[in-house]
C-alpha cells in the first residue's frame, strides 16, 4: 500500500517506520516560538537545563512576535522582552523577528525559512498553515517547543489521511475564503478530527499562494492536524527563489488507502459567512443580509496578504466606509505592508476612512487591534469567532470582498465584483 504526502514528509525526517497511529521521533528543520508562549519556552529551558546550552542549532531556531505587536499591555511587554533577550544572546540576530515583522507563519514562507517538505514547529496553533506550500507545520505547547529548541526533534503520532477533492469555478464574487468556508460548512468542526487532509481538484489547482494559505489556515477549525496542498510550479518557483534552496516535492502514491475520500462540486459557489459562535456555522451571505455591522477587520494569517487587500481595494475605491463602521486594515507582514504602500493601497484605504495598522495578528489572538464590546457586531476575514475570543461582541467570518462591502453598507451585504 502506498504512502500519503504527510507519511512521506515524516519518513524523510525520521529513522523509524512510518504508519498511521505510530509515534515516531521526528527531526525538526525549523523550531520557533512567538510572543505567546515564547517566554514560557525560555523559562522551561532555564529551569530544566540550568547552566547548559539551550539551543541545539541556533541557525534553525527562531522567535517571531506577532500576537500583540507592539505590546499594548504589561504582560506581553514583559514576555516579549524575556524572549528578545534570550534570542539576542543565543541566536543569529536575523532569527529574531521582532514586533515590526508581522505574522510568524507568513514570514517563514516569505523568507524561505519554510520550504516544501520541511518540518516546522512553534507555539502557534495555526502553524499548520504551512501545508499551503506542502510543508509540515505544527503548533505545540511551550514544554514541547522548549524540548525541540534543546534537541532538534520531537515525537509525533502519524495521523490518518483523508482526501478532499474540490472541482468547479466559484462565483465571480467568491474567493478562496468562500471555498474554505464552504468546506467548513460541509465538514463541520470535527470533520477532519485528528487527520491530515490532502486537497486536490481543479478549484484547488487554481488557487494562488494567498488562496492556498487561506484554505490551509482553517484546517485547524475543521479539527485537522494539517491540510496539505501539493505545490504547483509557481509555488515551487516562489519557494526556490525565496529560500535559494532546492527541495524534494512529494506526491501521494497512486495506491494510497485514504480513511475518507470526499468530493465537492463548488461550481458557482456563492459568498459564504460563518455566524457566531463557531467557524463551522456557515451560511450563504445572501441568507443573513441586513444585520447591522459596527466593525470590519481585514487581516490575519487567513486573509492578510496583498491579494486579499487588492480585492477589498477594488470594492472600496473612491468610496467611504459607513459612518457607523470602524474599519481596520492590518497586513500580515512588513513585506505586505510595503506592497500596500507602493501600490497606493494605503492611500486608498486612508481615503475610505479605514484605520491602518502595522503588521500583526490584528484582533485574532489577544488584541493587537480591534477587540469588541458587548453587542458589537464585527465582520472579520479572520479564522475564529468563538464566544469571547475577540471580546464580548458577535464575530462573523467572511472574505475580504464581503468584509469590504459590509464596511461600505454598514450592514451584512453580498459583495459585487
Amino acid at each position, binding site marked *: 500500500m502506498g504512502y500519503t504526502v504527510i507519511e512521506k514528509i515524516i519518513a524523510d525526517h525520521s529513522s523509524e517506520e512510518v504508519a498511521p*497511529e*505510530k509515534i*515516531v*521521533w521526528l527531526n525538526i528543520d525549523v523550531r520557533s516560538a512567538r510572543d505567546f508562549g515564547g517566554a514560557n519556552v525560555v523559562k*522551561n529551558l532555564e529551569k*530544566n537545563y540550568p547552566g547548559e546550552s539551550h539551543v541545539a542549532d541556533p541557525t534553525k531556531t527562531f522567535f517571531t512576535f506577532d500576537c500583540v505587536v507592539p505590546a499594548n499591555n504589561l504582560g506581553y511587554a514583559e514576555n516579549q522582552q524575556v524572549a528578545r533577550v534570550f534570542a539576542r544572546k543565543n541566536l543569529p540576530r536575523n532569527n529574531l523577528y521582532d514586533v515590526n515583522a508581522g505574522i510568524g507563519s507568513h514570514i517563514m514562507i516569505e523568507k524561505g525559512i519554510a520550504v516544501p517538505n520541511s518540518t516546522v514547529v512553534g507555539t502557534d496553533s495555526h502553524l499548520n498553515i504551512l501545508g499551503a506550500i506542502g510543508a509540515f507545520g505544527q503548533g505545540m505547547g511551550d*514544554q514541547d517547543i522548549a524540548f525541540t529548541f534543546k534537541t532538534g526533534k520531537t*515525537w509525533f*503520532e502519524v495521523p490518518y489521511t483523508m482526501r478532499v477533492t474540490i472541482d468547479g469555478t466559484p462565483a465571480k464574487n467568491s474567493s478562496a475564503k468562500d471555498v474554505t468556508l464552504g468546506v467548513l460548512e460541509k465538514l463541520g468542526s470535527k470533520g477532519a478530527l485528528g487527520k491530515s487532509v490532502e486537497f486536490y481538484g481543479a478549484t484547488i489547482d487554481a488557487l494562488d499562494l494567498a488562496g492556498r494559505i487561506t484554505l490551509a489556515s482553517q484546517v485547524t477549525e475543521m479539527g485537522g492536524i494539517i491540510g496539505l496542498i501539493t505545490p504547483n510550479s509557481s509555488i515551487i518557483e516562489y519557494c526556490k527563489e525565496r529560500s535559494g534552496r532546492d527541495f524534494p516535492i512529494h506526491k501521494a502514491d497512486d495506491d494510497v488507502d485514504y480513511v475518507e475520500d470526499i468530493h465537492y462540486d463548488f461550481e458557482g459557489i456563492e459568498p459564504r459567512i460563518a455566524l457566531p459562535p463557531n467557524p463551522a456555522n456557515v451560511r450563504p451571505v445572501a441568507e443573513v443580509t441586513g444585520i447591522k455591522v459596527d466593525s470590519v477587520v481585514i487581516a490575519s494569517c487567513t486573509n492578510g496578504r496583498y491579494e486579499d487587500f487588492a480585492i477589498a481595494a477594488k470594492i472600496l475605491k473612491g468610496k467611504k466606509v459607513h459612518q457607523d463602521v470602524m474599519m481596520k486594515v492590518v497586513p500580515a507582514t512588513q513585506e505586505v505592508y510595503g506592497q500596500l504602500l507602493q501600490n497606493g493601497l494605503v492611500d486608498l484605504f486612508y481615503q475610505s476612512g479605514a484605520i491602518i495598522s502595522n503588521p500583526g495578528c490584528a484582533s485574532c489572538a489577544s488584541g493587537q487591534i480591534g477587540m469588541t464590546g458587548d453587542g458589537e457586531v464585527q465582520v472579520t476575514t479572520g479564522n475564529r469567532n468563538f464566544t469571547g475570543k475577540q471580546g464580548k461582541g458577535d464575530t462573523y467570518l467572511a472574505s475580504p470582498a464581503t468584509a469590504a462591502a459590509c464596511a461600505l453598507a454598514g450592514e451584512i451585504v453580498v459583495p459585487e465584483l
Partner: protein
Amino acid sequence: MKKSTTLTGKAIVIKDSQGTGIDDIDTDMIFHNKHLHITDINEMGQYAFGNLEGWKEFSSLVTENSILIVGKNFGAGSSRQQAVDCFKALEVMLIIGESFGAIYKRNAINSGMPLLTAPEIMKTAIETGDLLKIDLTTGKISSETKKLQFSNITPLSQVQLDIYYAGNLFEYGKSLE
C-alpha cells in the same frame, strides 16, 4: 538502573453505577478548573476525579501500584498538565484506555506516564481489584486473578519507552548530551 517494562499492579476500572465504562471523561472531570492554581504536584492527588460522578473519592481508593483502566476519548478537553500529574501524584503506574484525547496523550507521554491504548478493554472481564501483569513492550496483559490473557493492545512505541526510561521529556533531553 533501567526501569522495568513489566509492571504488576491492581486494576481500577472506571465504570458508572450500571457497570458500563465511562467514555469522554474530560480534563475538568479529572482535575477541575477550580484547582488549576495548584502547581505543587504533591497537592494534586486529592483532587483526581474530583468532578466525576461516582468517583469523587478516587484518591482514597488508590493503593500503591494502581493501574487505571478507562474508556474512550479519555482526557478530552483542555491542555492542563495537572490532569496527568494528579495521577502521578497518587503513584498510579499506568493508564490503559480504549482511546485518548490527543493533547492528553502528549502530556502523559511527556511526563513519563505510560499509557496503553486497548480498544476493547472495557468489554473484557477485568474488574477493579484484579491483579494484572503488563508487558509495556509487547502490550500483553495477563490477569493473575482470572487467569486470562489479553492481546490486541498497542505496545509502547520507542518514543514512549525512551521518555519513560528517562523519567520525563526534559530528562530525556538531558540524556542526549
